[in-house]
């Protein structure tokens, strides 16, 4: 548990409440990652039932976010936290919002995969699968870094978002090529383009979480710039 690294609070129930907050956020992270994996699996397997299941499950993550918000407000009101406890509780709000957005993007991927199932399979789906696997890995890493309060791991994850950006740029080019080759591919490829963009945005939310973890541990913002790809369109 995250708090094992610190000396325990004199008031044990405070530690228990903080642990519940961390556990809820960790659960949100696991669910968001599963949602992303299932959405992409639904696309690859052309499984609309699985896609519909992803859409239906999103409400669970929304509820967990509300749960985190309630816990944060309660902790602020009743414990009047300071120093690392204050940072810990405040970033709970941010991290849960980032995870909720990640899950929203996963839902959007699932909805598009339902539409895609009406069209013949196009090659670039494998690029989406690769991109998604990387994004899933980054979600897992950043959640581990959060639970373990591992600054170095958070920074490594933060830097690795660059790989997602590079994949996005490469996939963008690939999709444009496919569309130029055969206009019948345009609808499917446009959906894939949005899906790629969604995964790229998931990567950005992972970096937000990594920045929050850095602030939690160091009390200062994570400085420096990740090198962005040569192209950063916002379709």
């Amino acid at each position, binding site marked *: 548990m995250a708090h094992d690294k*610190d*000396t*325990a*609070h*004199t*008031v044990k129930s*405070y530690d228990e409440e903080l642990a519940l907050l961390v556990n809820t956020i960790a659960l949100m992270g696991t669910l968001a990652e599963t949602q992303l994996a299932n959405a992409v699996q639904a696309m690859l397997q052309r499984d609309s039932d699985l896609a519909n299941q992803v859409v239906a499950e999103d409400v669970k993550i929304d509820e967990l976010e509300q749960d985190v918000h309630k816990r944060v407000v309660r902790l602020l009101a009743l414990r*009047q*936290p*300071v*120093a*690392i*406890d*204050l*940072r810990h509780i405040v970033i709970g709000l941010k991290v849960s919002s980032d995870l909720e957005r990640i899950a929203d993007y996963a839902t959007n991927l699932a909805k598009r995969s339902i539409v895609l199932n009406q069209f013949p399979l196009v090659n670039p789906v494998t690029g989406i699968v690769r991109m998604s696997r990387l994004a899933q890995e980054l979600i897992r890493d950043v959640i581990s870094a959060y639970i373990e309060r591992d600054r170095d791991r958070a920074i490594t994850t933060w830097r690795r978002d660059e790989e997602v950006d590079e994949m996005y740029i490469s996939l963008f080019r690939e999709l444009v090529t496919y569309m130029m080759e055969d206009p019948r591919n345009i609808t499917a490829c446009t959906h894939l383009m949005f899906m790629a963009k969604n995964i790229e945005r998931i990567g950005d939310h992972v970096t937000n979480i990594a920045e929050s973890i850095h602030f939690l541990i*160091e*009390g*200062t913002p994570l400085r420096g710039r990740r090198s962005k790809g040569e192209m950063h369109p916002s379709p």
Partner: protein
Amino acid sequence: MTYRASNDPPHGTVGAPRVEAARAKLTACNVDVFYGEKHAIKDVSLDIGRNEVTALIGPSGCGKSTFMRCLNRMNDIIDICRVTGTITLDGEDIYDPKIDVVHLRARVGMVFQKPNPFPKSIFENVAYGPRIHGLASGKAGLEEIVLTSLKRAGLLEEVKDRLHAPGTSLSGGQQQRLCIARAIAVSPQVILMDEPCSALDPIATARIEELIDELQHNFTIVIVTHSMQQAARVSQRTAFFHLGELIECGMTEQIFTNPLHRLTQGYLTGRFG
């Protein structure tokens, strides 16, 4: 007093125990305090900024009150107490044998934990200091000092119709504001407050805190408090003491959001043991 060449903070203190020389009202250098054999304050160096509120925090017995009492030589009255190091007020050594201690305590006033009005009228409580220090010219002058002091202490409106009632007839919060009025009546430059709100309810506490906010424009304030939230609310700088050492000093905002020292963090977050 022993004099040491070094003005450097001891190795143990982290943060910023010093302020720019021009802003320092009180400067303590390498102060040690002994009660007989007991080493109560260990090599503390700390500046108190002018027109600032400095909060001294730390667990019971950490030396925060002992250190504060050095600032107007209140420890002199304890026979077994020995103070070494240097403390200056506006550059003047307050432990210099030539210093008039009574005059010093008029410049560095004190408000205690428990309101302790004299068994006299409200008016006389405030008039006592200016009278013995010869600060008032005539009856009218004295009355003006009393009324101004009561006004600055935020008490005048509540007591103006009963200035000759006993000070002890007031509520706890009013008594504490009366003690603050008594302290400021002799025009001190520094006010030391030793747990001024620990015997008061939250409303009376809020009034004292509001008063501290106003007083800091004209006075330099040092407050010892066990309420960390109070230190956070009223002070600009916070100094954390532990086992007689000054562990950390810095801007209150920094201390409460991102303390540098492990012990400060442990104390503030309730992980002490």
